[in-house]
Protein backbone atom coordinates (compact mmCIF):
# COMPACT_ATOMS: atom_id res chain seq x y z
CA UNK A 1 0.00 0.00 0.00
CA UNK A 2 1.98 2.98 -1.26
CA UNK A 3 0.91 6.36 0.02
CA UNK A 4 1.26 9.24 -2.37
CA UNK A 5 4.15 11.61 -1.87
CA UNK A 6 4.08 13.60 1.32
CA UNK A 7 6.38 16.46 0.38
CA UNK A 8 3.68 18.55 -1.36
CA UNK A 9 1.76 18.49 1.93
CA UNK A 10 4.86 19.55 3.85
CA UNK A 11 5.55 22.29 1.31
CA UNK A 12 2.00 23.62 1.54
CA UNK A 13 1.90 23.50 5.34
CA UNK A 14 5.31 25.08 5.82
CA UNK A 15 4.44 27.74 3.27
CA UNK A 16 1.18 28.54 5.08
CA UNK A 17 2.80 28.89 8.49
CA UNK A 18 5.70 30.99 7.23
CA UNK A 19 3.40 33.05 5.05
CA UNK A 20 1.48 34.14 8.12
CA UNK A 21 4.76 35.09 9.82
CA UNK A 22 5.73 36.99 6.68
CA UNK A 23 2.50 38.96 6.62
CA UNK A 24 3.30 40.15 10.13
CA UNK A 25 6.82 41.02 9.05
CA UNK A 26 5.67 42.95 5.99
CA UNK A 27 3.11 44.85 8.06
CA UNK A 28 5.83 46.05 10.41
CA UNK A 29 8.12 47.03 7.56
CA UNK A 30 5.27 48.82 5.84
CA UNK A 31 4.52 50.71 9.02
CA UNK A 32 8.17 51.70 9.33
CA UNK A 33 8.16 52.78 5.70
CA UNK A 34 5.11 54.97 6.21
CA UNK A 35 6.82 56.59 9.18
CA UNK A 36 9.84 57.22 6.96
CA UNK A 37 7.62 58.80 4.32
CA UNK A 38 6.14 61.12 6.93
CA UNK A 39 9.63 61.96 8.16
CA UNK A 40 10.81 62.64 4.62
CA UNK A 41 7.87 64.94 3.96
CA UNK A 42 8.89 67.01 6.93
CA UNK A 43 12.63 66.90 6.38
CA UNK A 44 13.00 67.02 2.64
CA UNK A 45 15.21 63.96 2.52
CA UNK A 46 15.30 61.46 -0.32
CA UNK A 47 13.56 58.18 0.21
CA UNK A 48 13.91 54.80 -1.46
CA UNK A 49 10.74 53.13 -2.73
CA UNK A 50 9.27 50.27 -0.72
CA UNK A 51 10.92 47.61 -2.85
CA UNK A 52 14.34 49.03 -1.96
CA UNK A 53 13.39 49.88 1.55
CA UNK A 54 12.15 46.38 2.36
CA UNK A 55 14.95 44.56 0.58
CA UNK A 56 17.61 44.48 3.27
CA UNK A 57 15.16 43.87 6.12
CA UNK A 58 13.63 41.05 4.10
CA UNK A 59 17.07 39.51 3.80
CA UNK A 60 17.56 39.59 7.57
CA UNK A 61 14.04 38.28 8.12
CA UNK A 62 14.61 35.38 5.70
CA UNK A 63 17.91 34.56 7.43
CA UNK A 64 16.07 34.34 10.73
CA UNK A 65 13.18 32.16 9.58
CA UNK A 66 15.71 30.01 7.72
CA UNK A 67 17.54 29.40 10.99
CA UNK A 68 14.26 28.51 12.67
CA UNK A 69 13.31 26.01 9.95
CA UNK A 70 15.21 23.01 11.32
CA UNK A 71 14.27 23.58 14.92
CA UNK A 72 10.63 24.38 14.34
CA UNK A 73 9.81 21.82 11.68
CA UNK A 74 12.30 18.96 11.39
CA UNK A 75 11.55 17.38 14.77
CA UNK A 76 7.84 17.83 14.31
CA UNK A 77 7.70 16.26 10.87
CA UNK A 78 9.90 13.26 11.60
CA UNK A 79 7.90 12.65 14.78
CA UNK A 80 4.82 12.48 12.61
CA UNK A 81 6.29 9.98 10.24
CA UNK A 82 7.56 12.30 7.52
CA UNK A 83 10.93 11.26 6.15
CA UNK A 84 13.88 13.64 6.30
CA UNK A 85 13.79 13.65 2.51
CA UNK A 86 10.16 14.73 2.30
CA UNK A 87 10.84 17.38 4.93
CA UNK A 88 13.81 18.65 2.93
CA UNK A 89 11.98 18.86 -0.40
CA UNK A 90 8.88 20.35 1.22
CA UNK A 91 10.85 22.93 3.18
CA UNK A 92 12.88 23.92 0.12
CA UNK A 93 9.75 24.39 -2.00
CA UNK A 94 8.11 26.37 0.78
CA UNK A 95 11.19 28.60 1.00
CA UNK A 96 11.02 29.36 -2.73
CA UNK A 97 7.32 30.12 -2.34
CA UNK A 98 7.89 32.43 0.62
CA UNK A 99 10.69 34.29 -1.14
CA UNK A 100 8.52 34.79 -4.22
CA UNK A 101 5.50 35.77 -2.12
CA UNK A 102 7.42 38.43 -0.20
CA UNK A 103 8.89 39.79 -3.46
CA UNK A 104 5.46 39.95 -5.07
CA UNK A 105 3.86 41.60 -2.06
CA UNK A 106 6.72 44.12 -1.86
CA UNK A 107 6.31 44.90 -5.56
CA UNK A 108 2.55 45.33 -5.27
CA UNK A 109 2.99 47.61 -2.26
CA UNK A 110 5.56 49.62 -4.19
CA UNK A 111 3.06 50.03 -7.02
CA UNK A 112 0.44 51.15 -4.53
CA UNK A 113 2.94 53.51 -2.96
CA UNK A 114 3.49 55.29 -6.27
CA UNK A 115 -0.22 55.35 -6.96
CA UNK A 116 -1.07 56.78 -3.55
CA UNK A 117 1.68 59.38 -3.69
CA UNK A 118 0.58 60.34 -7.20
CA UNK A 119 -3.06 60.71 -6.20
CA UNK A 120 -2.43 62.56 -2.97
CA UNK A 121 0.30 64.61 -4.58
CA UNK A 122 2.44 64.59 -1.48
CA UNK A 123 5.79 66.33 -1.73
CA UNK A 124 7.86 63.18 -1.44
CA UNK A 125 10.88 62.47 -3.58
CA UNK A 126 11.23 58.80 -4.20
CA UNK A 127 14.54 57.93 -5.65
CA UNK A 128 14.86 54.77 -7.64
CA UNK A 129 17.91 55.54 -9.72
CA UNK A 130 20.58 56.24 -7.19
CA UNK A 131 23.93 56.15 -8.87
CA UNK A 132 26.07 55.42 -5.89
CA UNK A 133 24.32 52.20 -5.13
CA UNK A 134 23.16 53.12 -1.69
CA UNK A 135 20.35 54.93 -0.09
CA UNK A 136 21.37 57.38 2.52
CA UNK A 137 19.37 59.63 4.69
CA UNK A 138 20.31 63.30 4.59
CA UNK A 139 22.55 63.08 7.61
CA UNK A 140 24.28 59.89 6.47
CA UNK A 141 23.11 58.03 9.51
CA UNK A 142 21.31 55.32 7.60
CA UNK A 143 22.76 53.63 4.64
CA UNK A 144 21.24 50.68 2.94
CA UNK A 145 23.00 48.82 0.20
CA UNK A 146 20.86 47.74 -2.66
CA UNK A 147 21.85 45.61 -5.59
CA UNK A 148 22.60 47.68 -8.65
CA UNK A 149 20.52 45.42 -10.74
CA UNK A 150 17.38 46.13 -8.80
CA UNK A 151 18.14 49.81 -8.78
CA UNK A 152 18.60 50.05 -12.48
CA UNK A 153 15.61 47.95 -13.29
CA UNK A 154 13.07 49.30 -10.91
CA UNK A 155 9.71 47.98 -11.87
CA UNK A 156 8.27 51.38 -12.40
CA UNK A 157 11.16 52.91 -14.21
CA UNK A 158 11.41 50.06 -16.65
CA UNK A 159 8.09 48.39 -16.40
CA UNK A 160 9.14 45.87 -19.04
CA UNK A 161 11.59 44.27 -16.62
CA UNK A 162 9.33 43.95 -13.61
CA UNK A 163 9.63 40.20 -13.87
CA UNK A 164 13.39 40.54 -13.69
CA UNK A 165 13.17 42.74 -10.59
CA UNK A 166 10.95 40.19 -8.93
CA UNK A 167 13.33 37.40 -9.83
CA UNK A 168 16.26 39.27 -8.34
CA UNK A 169 14.46 40.20 -5.18
CA UNK A 170 13.32 36.60 -4.83
CA UNK A 171 16.76 35.11 -5.44
CA UNK A 172 18.40 37.54 -3.03
CA UNK A 173 16.13 36.81 -0.12
CA UNK A 174 15.97 33.09 -0.93
CA UNK A 175 19.76 32.99 -0.70
CA UNK A 176 19.56 34.36 2.83
CA UNK A 177 16.87 31.84 3.76
CA UNK A 178 18.97 28.86 2.69
CA UNK A 179 22.00 30.35 4.45
CA UNK A 180 19.93 30.57 7.64
CA UNK A 181 18.67 27.05 7.11
CA UNK A 182 22.27 25.85 6.74
CA UNK A 183 23.26 27.51 10.03
CA UNK A 184 20.20 26.04 11.76
CA UNK A 185 20.91 22.57 10.42
CA UNK A 186 24.58 22.80 11.40
CA UNK A 187 23.65 23.74 14.95
CA UNK A 188 20.91 21.13 15.11
CA UNK A 189 23.29 18.41 14.12
CA UNK A 190 26.56 19.41 15.76
CA UNK A 191 25.70 21.72 18.65
CA UNK A 192 27.08 25.17 19.19
CA UNK A 193 30.85 24.65 18.96
CA UNK A 194 30.92 23.23 15.45
CA UNK A 195 27.87 25.38 14.75
CA UNK A 196 30.16 28.40 14.71
CA UNK A 197 31.89 26.86 11.71
CA UNK A 198 28.59 27.09 9.85
CA UNK A 199 28.38 30.76 10.65
CA UNK A 200 31.81 31.16 9.01
CA UNK A 201 30.60 29.26 5.92
CA UNK A 202 27.52 31.47 5.92
CA UNK A 203 29.50 34.69 6.04
CA UNK A 204 31.49 33.52 3.03
CA UNK A 205 28.23 32.65 1.25
CA UNK A 206 26.78 36.07 2.03
CA UNK A 207 29.92 37.74 0.62
CA UNK A 208 29.68 35.63 -2.54
CA UNK A 209 26.00 36.49 -2.90
CA UNK A 210 26.73 40.20 -2.48
CA UNK A 211 29.56 40.06 -5.02
CA UNK A 212 27.30 38.27 -7.50
CA UNK A 213 24.83 41.12 -7.39
CA UNK A 214 27.47 43.82 -7.44
CA UNK A 215 26.48 45.03 -4.03
CA UNK A 216 29.11 46.88 -2.12
CA UNK A 217 30.40 44.63 0.57
CA UNK A 218 29.19 45.64 3.94
CA UNK A 219 30.80 42.99 6.08
CA UNK A 220 34.01 44.02 7.83
CA UNK A 221 35.43 40.57 7.13
CA UNK A 222 35.51 41.25 3.41
CA UNK A 223 38.02 44.07 3.75
CA UNK A 224 40.86 41.74 2.86
CA UNK A 225 39.46 41.27 -0.64
CA UNK A 226 41.36 43.21 -3.33
CA UNK A 227 38.07 44.57 -4.68
CA UNK A 228 34.88 45.73 -3.07
CA UNK A 229 32.49 44.92 -5.86
CA UNK A 230 32.48 43.31 -9.27
CA UNK A 231 30.24 43.95 -12.22
CA UNK A 232 28.46 41.06 -13.84
CA UNK A 233 25.73 40.85 -16.43
CA UNK A 234 22.34 40.25 -14.81
CA UNK A 235 22.05 36.80 -16.36
CA UNK A 236 25.37 35.76 -14.82
CA UNK A 237 24.33 37.19 -11.44
CA UNK A 238 21.06 35.27 -11.57
CA UNK A 239 22.74 32.05 -12.67
CA UNK A 240 25.42 32.46 -10.01
CA UNK A 241 22.76 33.02 -7.38
CA UNK A 242 20.86 29.92 -8.41
CA UNK A 243 24.06 27.87 -8.31
CA UNK A 244 24.92 29.26 -4.87
CA UNK A 245 21.44 28.39 -3.58
CA UNK A 246 21.76 24.92 -5.11
CA UNK A 247 25.13 24.29 -3.47
CA UNK A 248 23.87 25.40 -0.06
CA UNK A 249 20.73 23.26 -0.42
CA UNK A 250 22.92 20.31 -1.29
CA UNK A 251 24.93 20.98 1.88
CA UNK A 252 21.74 21.09 3.97
CA UNK A 253 20.59 17.81 2.48
CA UNK A 254 23.93 16.19 3.32
CA UNK A 255 23.64 17.46 6.89
CA UNK A 256 20.07 16.33 7.41
CA UNK A 257 19.95 13.16 5.33
CA UNK A 258 20.42 10.82 8.29
CA UNK A 259 20.28 13.36 11.09
CA UNK A 260 19.38 12.32 14.64
CA UNK A 261 16.16 13.95 15.74
CA UNK A 262 16.29 15.85 19.02
CA UNK A 263 13.70 14.68 21.52
Amino acid at each position, binding site marked *: *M*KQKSIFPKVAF*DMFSVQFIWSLWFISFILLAHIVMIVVSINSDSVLGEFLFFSHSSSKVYMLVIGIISSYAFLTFYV*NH*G*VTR*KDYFIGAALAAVGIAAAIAIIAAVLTGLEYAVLEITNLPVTINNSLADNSIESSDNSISIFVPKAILSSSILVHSSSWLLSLLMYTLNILTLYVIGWLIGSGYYRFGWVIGFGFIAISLVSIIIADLLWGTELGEPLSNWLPFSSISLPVSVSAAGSIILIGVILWGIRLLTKRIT*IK*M
Partner: protein
Amino acid sequence: MKFDVEVNNLSLKYNDYEALKDLSFMLEGGKVYGLLGRNGAGKTSLLSLLASFRESTKGSIKITGENPFENADIMQNVHLIYEKDYKDESEKVKGMLEIIERYRPNFDAEYAQYLVKRFKLPLDKAVNKLSRGMQSALNVTMGLASRAPITIFDEAYLGMDAPTREIFYKELLADQAERPRTMILSTHLVSEMDYLFDEVIIIDKGAFVLHEEYETLISRGASITGAAEEVDDFVSGMTQLNEQQLGNTKAVMVYGYLSEKDKQEALQRGLEVGPVSLQDLFIHLTSEEV
Protein backbone atom coordinates in the same frame (compact mmCIF):
# COMPACT_ATOMS: atom_id res chain seq x y z
CA MET B 1 -1.39 -5.67 7.29
CA LYS B 2 0.39 -6.91 10.38
CA PHE B 3 3.20 -4.76 11.60
CA ASP B 4 5.65 -7.23 13.04
CA VAL B 5 8.82 -5.79 14.49
CA GLU B 6 12.04 -7.73 14.29
CA VAL B 7 15.11 -6.49 16.11
CA ASN B 8 18.42 -8.19 15.45
CA ASN B 9 21.69 -7.63 17.30
CA LEU B 10 20.82 -4.00 17.77
CA SER B 11 23.56 -1.83 19.29
CA LEU B 12 23.75 1.89 19.81
CA LYS B 13 26.76 3.87 20.92
CA TYR B 14 26.92 7.53 21.91
CA ASN B 15 30.61 8.22 21.45
CA ASP B 16 32.10 5.70 23.88
CA TYR B 17 28.95 5.00 25.84
CA GLU B 18 27.10 1.85 24.87
CA ALA B 19 23.42 2.68 25.25
CA LEU B 20 22.17 -0.56 23.72
CA LYS B 21 24.07 -3.81 23.55
CA ASP B 22 23.22 -6.46 21.03
CA LEU B 23 19.45 -6.56 21.52
CA SER B 24 17.41 -9.12 19.64
CA PHE B 25 13.69 -9.74 19.94
CA MET B 26 10.57 -10.05 17.87
CA LEU B 27 7.26 -8.29 18.41
CA GLU B 28 4.27 -9.86 16.79
CA GLY B 29 1.74 -7.30 15.55
CA GLY B 30 -1.43 -6.50 17.49
CA LYS B 31 -0.30 -6.89 21.07
CA VAL B 32 0.45 -4.58 23.96
CA TYR B 33 4.06 -4.76 25.07
CA GLY B 34 5.42 -3.41 28.31
CA LEU B 35 8.99 -2.22 27.98
CA LEU B 36 10.53 -2.12 31.41
CA GLY B 37 13.92 -0.94 32.48
CA ARG B 38 15.45 1.22 35.14
CA ASN B 39 16.52 4.80 34.58
CA GLY B 40 19.16 4.87 31.88
CA ALA B 41 18.48 1.29 30.82
CA GLY B 42 18.15 2.41 27.22
CA LYS B 43 14.34 2.37 26.83
CA THR B 44 14.12 5.74 25.11
CA SER B 45 17.16 4.95 22.95
CA LEU B 46 15.50 1.75 21.78
CA LEU B 47 12.18 3.49 21.11
CA SER B 48 13.84 6.35 19.22
CA LEU B 49 15.43 3.75 16.95
CA LEU B 50 12.05 2.11 16.32
CA ALA B 51 10.61 5.52 15.44
CA SER B 52 13.49 6.33 13.03
CA PHE B 53 14.62 9.28 15.13
CA ARG B 54 18.14 7.94 14.79
CA GLU B 55 20.13 5.12 13.26
CA SER B 56 21.66 2.22 15.14
CA THR B 57 25.40 1.71 15.34
CA LYS B 58 25.07 -1.97 14.59
CA GLY B 59 22.34 -4.51 13.96
CA SER B 60 18.98 -4.05 12.30
CA ILE B 61 15.35 -3.22 12.84
CA LYS B 62 12.80 -4.67 10.45
CA ILE B 63 9.19 -3.56 10.44
CA THR B 64 7.02 -5.60 8.07
CA GLY B 65 10.35 -6.95 6.88
CA GLU B 66 11.72 -3.56 5.86
CA ASN B 67 14.18 -1.12 7.36
CA PRO B 68 11.98 1.69 8.73
CA PHE B 69 14.63 4.42 8.54
CA GLU B 70 13.62 7.04 5.94
CA ASN B 71 10.97 4.64 4.70
CA ALA B 72 7.85 6.78 4.28
CA ASP B 73 5.40 3.86 4.17
CA ILE B 74 6.61 2.61 7.52
CA MET B 75 7.41 5.87 9.28
CA GLN B 76 3.83 7.11 8.80
CA ASN B 77 2.64 4.03 10.61
CA VAL B 78 4.91 4.33 13.60
CA HIS B 79 3.99 6.91 16.19
CA LEU B 80 6.26 7.65 19.15
CA ILE B 81 4.59 9.60 21.92
CA TYR B 82 6.97 11.13 24.46
CA GLU B 83 7.10 14.11 26.74
CA LYS B 84 7.80 17.01 24.43
CA ASP B 85 9.00 20.46 25.25
CA TYR B 86 5.98 22.56 24.36
CA LYS B 87 7.15 25.89 25.76
CA ASP B 88 7.33 27.42 22.28
CA GLU B 89 4.23 25.75 20.91
CA SER B 90 1.68 28.51 20.51
CA GLU B 91 -0.61 26.41 18.32
CA LYS B 92 -3.99 25.67 19.88
CA VAL B 93 -5.08 22.16 20.83
CA LYS B 94 -7.56 22.15 17.97
CA GLY B 95 -4.91 23.23 15.47
CA MET B 96 -2.50 20.56 16.70
CA LEU B 97 -5.06 17.84 16.13
CA GLU B 98 -5.82 19.19 12.66
CA ILE B 99 -2.14 19.15 11.69
CA ILE B 100 -1.66 15.60 12.97
CA GLU B 101 -4.66 14.47 10.99
CA ARG B 102 -2.90 15.54 7.80
CA TYR B 103 0.08 13.30 8.43
CA ARG B 104 -1.41 10.22 10.06
CA PRO B 105 -3.20 8.03 7.52
CA ASN B 106 -5.36 6.25 10.14
CA PHE B 107 -6.20 9.30 12.23
CA ASP B 108 -9.78 9.26 13.53
CA ALA B 109 -10.98 12.84 14.14
CA GLU B 110 -14.19 11.73 15.85
CA TYR B 111 -12.31 9.54 18.25
CA ALA B 112 -9.92 12.43 18.90
CA GLN B 113 -12.90 14.62 19.81
CA TYR B 114 -14.16 11.92 22.14
CA LEU B 115 -10.77 11.74 23.88
CA VAL B 116 -10.58 15.54 24.11
CA LYS B 117 -13.84 15.41 26.05
CA ARG B 118 -12.69 12.50 28.20
CA PHE B 119 -9.52 14.36 29.17
CA LYS B 120 -11.37 17.70 29.38
CA LEU B 121 -8.85 19.32 27.06
CA PRO B 122 -9.59 22.96 26.15
CA LEU B 123 -9.64 23.06 22.34
CA ASP B 124 -9.03 26.78 22.08
CA LYS B 125 -6.12 26.99 24.46
CA ALA B 126 -2.54 27.32 23.21
CA VAL B 127 -0.55 24.16 23.86
CA ASN B 128 2.20 26.01 25.78
CA LYS B 129 -0.46 27.37 28.16
CA LEU B 130 -1.59 23.88 29.17
CA SER B 131 -0.40 22.29 32.39
CA ARG B 132 2.11 19.47 32.12
CA GLY B 133 -0.57 16.89 32.80
CA MET B 134 -2.82 18.42 30.14
CA GLN B 135 0.05 18.40 27.64
CA SER B 136 0.52 14.71 28.36
CA ALA B 137 -3.21 14.16 27.88
CA LEU B 138 -2.94 15.91 24.51
CA ASN B 139 0.01 13.70 23.55
CA VAL B 140 -1.94 10.61 24.52
CA THR B 141 -4.98 11.86 22.59
CA MET B 142 -2.86 12.34 19.47
CA GLY B 143 -1.23 8.98 20.03
CA LEU B 144 -4.43 7.01 20.41
CA ALA B 145 -6.38 8.88 17.72
CA SER B 146 -3.58 8.40 15.17
CA ARG B 147 -4.33 4.69 15.39
CA ALA B 148 -0.86 4.02 14.04
CA PRO B 149 -0.25 0.28 13.61
CA ILE B 150 2.78 0.73 15.85
CA THR B 151 2.05 3.12 18.68
CA ILE B 152 4.77 3.75 21.23
CA PHE B 153 4.11 5.51 24.52
CA ASP B 154 7.38 6.46 26.18
CA GLU B 155 6.47 7.45 29.74
CA ALA B 156 3.57 9.27 28.14
CA TYR B 157 1.71 9.71 31.43
CA LEU B 158 4.26 12.08 33.02
CA GLY B 159 2.55 14.87 34.87
CA MET B 160 -0.88 13.24 34.70
CA ASP B 161 -2.71 12.79 37.96
CA ALA B 162 -3.95 9.34 38.98
CA PRO B 163 -7.53 9.72 37.69
CA THR B 164 -6.25 10.99 34.34
CA ARG B 165 -3.86 8.05 34.08
CA GLU B 166 -6.80 5.75 34.77
CA ILE B 167 -8.70 7.31 31.86
CA PHE B 168 -5.66 6.79 29.64
CA TYR B 169 -5.34 3.10 30.57
CA LYS B 170 -9.07 2.49 30.15
CA GLU B 171 -9.28 4.16 26.76
CA LEU B 172 -6.16 2.40 25.61
CA LEU B 173 -7.58 -1.00 26.49
CA ALA B 174 -10.99 -0.19 25.03
CA ASP B 175 -9.56 0.95 21.72
CA GLN B 176 -7.08 -1.91 21.64
CA ALA B 177 -9.94 -4.38 22.04
CA GLU B 178 -11.68 -2.94 18.99
CA ARG B 179 -8.69 -2.24 16.79
CA PRO B 180 -5.72 -4.29 17.87
CA ARG B 181 -2.40 -2.71 17.01
CA THR B 182 1.11 -3.00 18.31
CA MET B 183 1.48 -0.84 21.37
CA ILE B 184 4.71 -0.46 23.24
CA LEU B 185 4.41 1.11 26.65
CA SER B 186 7.60 2.06 28.39
CA THR B 187 7.16 2.80 32.03
CA HIS B 188 8.43 2.59 35.54
CA LEU B 189 4.93 2.68 36.95
CA VAL B 190 4.93 -1.09 36.71
CA SER B 191 2.45 -1.86 39.46
CA GLU B 192 -0.09 0.49 37.95
CA MET B 193 0.16 -0.62 34.33
CA ASP B 194 0.97 -4.31 34.50
CA TYR B 195 -2.57 -5.40 33.66
CA LEU B 196 -2.28 -3.64 30.31
CA PHE B 197 0.54 -5.80 29.03
CA ASP B 198 0.17 -8.90 26.87
CA GLU B 199 3.90 -9.34 26.87
CA VAL B 200 6.78 -7.86 28.79
CA ILE B 201 10.29 -6.97 27.67
CA ILE B 202 12.85 -6.07 30.27
CA ILE B 203 16.15 -4.43 29.42
CA ASP B 204 18.86 -3.50 31.85
CA LYS B 205 21.93 -1.35 31.27
CA GLY B 206 21.33 -1.52 27.54
CA ALA B 207 21.19 -5.30 27.48
CA PHE B 208 18.27 -7.62 26.86
CA VAL B 209 17.01 -9.37 30.01
CA LEU B 210 13.84 -11.13 28.97
CA HIS B 211 10.81 -11.13 26.71
CA GLU B 212 7.89 -13.18 27.94
CA GLU B 213 4.15 -13.28 28.08
CA TYR B 214 2.91 -11.43 31.10
CA GLU B 215 1.14 -14.49 32.52
CA THR B 216 4.16 -16.73 32.06
CA LEU B 217 6.42 -14.16 33.60
CA ILE B 218 4.41 -13.69 36.76
CA SER B 219 4.09 -17.45 37.15
CA ARG B 220 7.84 -17.44 37.56
CA GLY B 221 7.35 -16.25 41.06
CA ALA B 222 4.90 -16.67 43.89
CA SER B 223 3.86 -15.04 47.09
CA ILE B 224 3.74 -17.27 50.14
CA THR B 225 1.58 -16.04 52.98
CA GLY B 226 0.98 -17.51 56.38
CA ALA B 227 2.39 -17.87 59.88
CA ALA B 228 5.84 -16.31 60.02
CA GLU B 229 7.75 -19.42 61.13
CA GLU B 230 6.04 -21.68 58.62
CA VAL B 231 6.70 -19.20 55.82
CA ASP B 232 10.35 -18.77 56.77
CA ASP B 233 10.81 -22.49 56.89
CA PHE B 234 9.09 -23.05 53.55
CA VAL B 235 10.95 -20.36 51.61
CA SER B 236 14.40 -21.15 52.95
CA GLY B 237 16.57 -22.01 49.99
CA MET B 238 14.38 -20.10 47.55
CA THR B 239 15.26 -16.74 45.97
CA GLN B 240 13.33 -14.19 47.99
CA LEU B 241 12.28 -10.95 46.31
CA ASN B 242 10.44 -9.13 49.01
CA GLU B 243 8.85 -9.73 52.36
CA GLN B 244 6.15 -8.08 54.39
CA GLN B 245 5.06 -8.87 57.91
CA LEU B 246 1.99 -7.86 59.85
CA GLY B 247 1.90 -9.26 63.35
CA ASN B 248 2.62 -12.93 62.99
CA THR B 249 1.49 -13.09 59.40
CA LYS B 250 4.23 -12.91 56.83
CA ALA B 251 4.16 -12.67 53.03
CA VAL B 252 7.29 -13.49 51.07
CA MET B 253 7.71 -13.17 47.32
CA VAL B 254 9.85 -15.86 45.85
CA TYR B 255 11.38 -16.18 42.41
CA GLY B 256 11.38 -19.48 40.52
CA TYR B 257 8.69 -21.94 39.44
CA LEU B 258 6.82 -23.73 42.19
CA SER B 259 6.14 -27.32 41.31
CA GLU B 260 2.78 -28.93 42.09
CA LYS B 261 4.52 -30.78 44.90
CA ASP B 262 5.75 -27.51 46.37
CA LYS B 263 2.27 -26.07 46.18
CA GLN B 264 0.73 -29.13 47.86
CA GLU B 265 3.29 -28.88 50.62
CA ALA B 266 2.52 -25.23 51.15
CA LEU B 267 -1.19 -25.97 51.43
CA GLN B 268 -0.56 -28.74 53.95
CA ARG B 269 1.39 -26.31 56.07
CA GLY B 270 -1.52 -23.92 55.95
CA LEU B 271 0.21 -21.43 53.69
CA GLU B 272 -1.44 -19.46 50.98
CA VAL B 273 0.20 -19.42 47.55
CA GLY B 274 -0.57 -16.36 45.42
CA PRO B 275 0.79 -14.66 42.36
CA VAL B 276 3.79 -12.40 42.52
CA SER B 277 3.60 -8.86 41.19
CA LEU B 278 5.40 -7.84 38.03
CA GLN B 279 6.79 -4.92 40.00
CA ASP B 280 8.58 -7.24 42.43
CA LEU B 281 9.90 -9.39 39.62
CA PHE B 282 11.08 -6.32 37.75
CA ILE B 283 12.90 -4.96 40.77
CA HIS B 284 14.48 -8.33 41.38
CA LEU B 285 15.54 -8.89 37.79
CA THR B 286 17.15 -5.50 37.42
CA SER B 287 18.56 -4.98 40.89
CA GLU B 288 22.27 -4.37 41.31
CA GLU B 289 22.77 -7.41 43.50
CA VAL B 290 21.82 -9.96 40.86
